[in-house]
């Protein structure tokens, strides 16, 4: 039977030869992900008959959502999680400052080609850029997974998006994601798998790819993925040799064995073709991700503050594109930059990006989610307008219901903080304004 990548991943995770869309299958995920919500999950877990986590080796816990803890209540929450981690012998635990869970499980080689991850976080499709299956689930389900190691899932229909060509300079996969969500709407892929394929994928860097699978959560997708290729393997080799030198080779061998590739002629529920060269900078306007406009039609909208970071756009390439714009410039507006992980922060420091950003007047925050969900560290005041590289601009998302959030690519965020209004990078770089 011809199967899509997602179908093959779920067949592997459920120990079957094949699965079909619509079937309900029992899967045993390789990774069960949670973060600051782990203490709440532990509370639910304690209502279950099981005293111990069934597969502690499969859990991954990262403190990232409110780090360093902004209040004593948050600190107590973290302390409870450390207690749980100790008591249950969870070795894949990452402390405050290591980074955002979705970034960390990729960098640490916890998830990889062919594996399945279920996470208590809606951006769990993120890891699909490595050729893995990732889907978000709720806290009670994670508690159930801790106890039993398995969970029911419905096999999704697949939407295949074939990419051709190459993005223009100054255009990013963030723009492609916003374009797709604008076209298909925020429920365009509800209950579906989104798979990216075509020559265009080969033109995209690892950092650029993660944005696509991450943002498909905003189109309602259950998971999003693409097959691993030479670029994926190169990234895994160089990253794992840094994060786990003791067993990088073994881990890579395991990924080579577990890697799966969809059948090109497998049946899909929906097919889309996108010519990358036709994409222009795009913006999600308040208060919905699918309230989409080309940047050119909202340029000159007033901006009070910018935010570059999050699991969507807080990686090295994102900081590099901001630094390129800010080199030798002064910010006219506040700009908060929060690297997605300590590895990103370290690489950005070594590359000189951090110095460039600081010289321009930007603020650098602790790796983690920052103000993305309105917890702390850069939340908005009533009436403020923020241009953000994050993935959500819902009312109240950054802490205040009467603030406005525009989502854009990191270069546009940086340029807008120089200009004081939504601006195309070419405008502040002194190039021709489109």
């Amino acid at each position, binding site marked *: 039977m011809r199967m899509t990548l997602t179908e093959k991943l779920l067949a592997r995770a459920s120990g079957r030869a094949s699965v079909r869309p619509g079937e309900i299958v029992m899967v045993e995920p390789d990774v069960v992900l949670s973060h600051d919500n782990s203490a709440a999950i532990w509370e639910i877990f304690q209502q279950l*008959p099981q005293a111990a986590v069934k597969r502690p080796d499969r859990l991954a816990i990262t403190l990232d959502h409110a780090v360093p803890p902004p209040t004593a209540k948050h600190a107590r929450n973290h302390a409870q999680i450390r207690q749980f981690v100790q008591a249950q012998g969870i070795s894949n635990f990452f402390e405050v400052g290591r980074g955002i869970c979705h970034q960390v499980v990729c960098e640490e080689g916890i998830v990889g080609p062919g594996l399945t991850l279920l996470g208590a976080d809606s951006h769990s499709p993120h890891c699909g850029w490595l050729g893995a299956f990732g889907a978000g689930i709720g806290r009670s*389900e994670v508690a159930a997974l801790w106890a039993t190691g398995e969970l029911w899932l419905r096999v999704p229909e697949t939407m295949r998006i074939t990419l051709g060509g190459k993005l223009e300079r100054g255009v990013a996969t963030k723009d492609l994601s916003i374009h797709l969500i604008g076209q298909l709407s925020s*429920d365009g892929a509800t209950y579906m798998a989104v798979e990216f394929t075509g020559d265009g994928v080969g033109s995209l860097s690892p950092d650029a790819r993660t944005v696509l699978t991450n943002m498909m959560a905003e189109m309602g997708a259950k998971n999003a993925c693409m097959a691993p290729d030479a670029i994926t393997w190169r990234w895994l080799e160089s990253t794992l040799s840094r994060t786990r030198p003791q067993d990088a080779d073994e881990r890579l061998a395991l990924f080579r064995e577990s890697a799966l590739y969809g059948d090109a002629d497998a049946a899909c529920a929906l097919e889309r073709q996108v010519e990358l060269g036709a994409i222009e900078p795009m913006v999600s306007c308040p208060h919905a991700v699918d309230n989409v406009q080309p940047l050119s039609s909202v340029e000159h909208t007033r901006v009070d503050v910018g935010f570059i970071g999050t699991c969507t756009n807080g990686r090295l390439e994102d900081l590099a594109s901001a630094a390129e714009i800010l080199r030798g410039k002064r910010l006219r507006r506040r700009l908060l930059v929060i690297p997605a992980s300590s590895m990103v922060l370290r690489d950005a420091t070594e590359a000189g990006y951090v110095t460039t950003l600081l010289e321009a007047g930007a603020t650098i925050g602790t790796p983690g989610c920052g103000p993305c969900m309105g917890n702390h560290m850069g939340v908005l005041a009533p009436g403020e307008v923020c241009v953000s590289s994050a993935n*959500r601009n819902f009312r109240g998302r950054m802490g205040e219901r009467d603030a406005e959030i525009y989502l854009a690519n990191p270069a546009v965020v940086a340029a807008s903080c120089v200009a004081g209004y939504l601006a195309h990078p070419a405008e502040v770089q002194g190039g021709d304004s489109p």
Partner: protein
Amino acid sequence: MTRTSHRVWKYGDNVNTDVIFPGKYTYTVSRDPAELARHALEDLDPSFAANVRRGDVIVAGRNWGNGSSREQAVTCLLAAGVQAVIAASFARIYFRNAINSGLLVIECPAIVAAVSTGDELVIDMAATQIHFDGRSYDFPPLPQQVRDILDAGGIIPWLRANTPRDKQ
């Protein structure tokens, strides 16, 4: 008795979890039902928490509950006494969270345009129908596996009833 009568709170399309239960409370508000209920729909309809009555239902458009995976977006409604959410469609994680927390979710696009806030409708679970203003609206039954979890009151009570005890 499978026919039950409910007062309606009516909302539009794409109501997301941030306005159902704001993210800023997710690590500080406890599981105390009264506290959860106080923040229900805080950024969507400030009059809701003060006026909702036990047994009320929400009727909404497409894609109810899109956004974050936070379960409080379900449990705050349960705490507020909401009996069911009826929507044209649901975001995937919200739908799962509802079932797994024991909140009845009904996909019934046809009823949405017909009702307004304050109307009374009748849900007939046995017949999988909603009755309103002399008309009946069918909704699809849930798969049995999923129905079992909902009937048990969620995945935790279901697991408690269906796993042998190894805890002293």
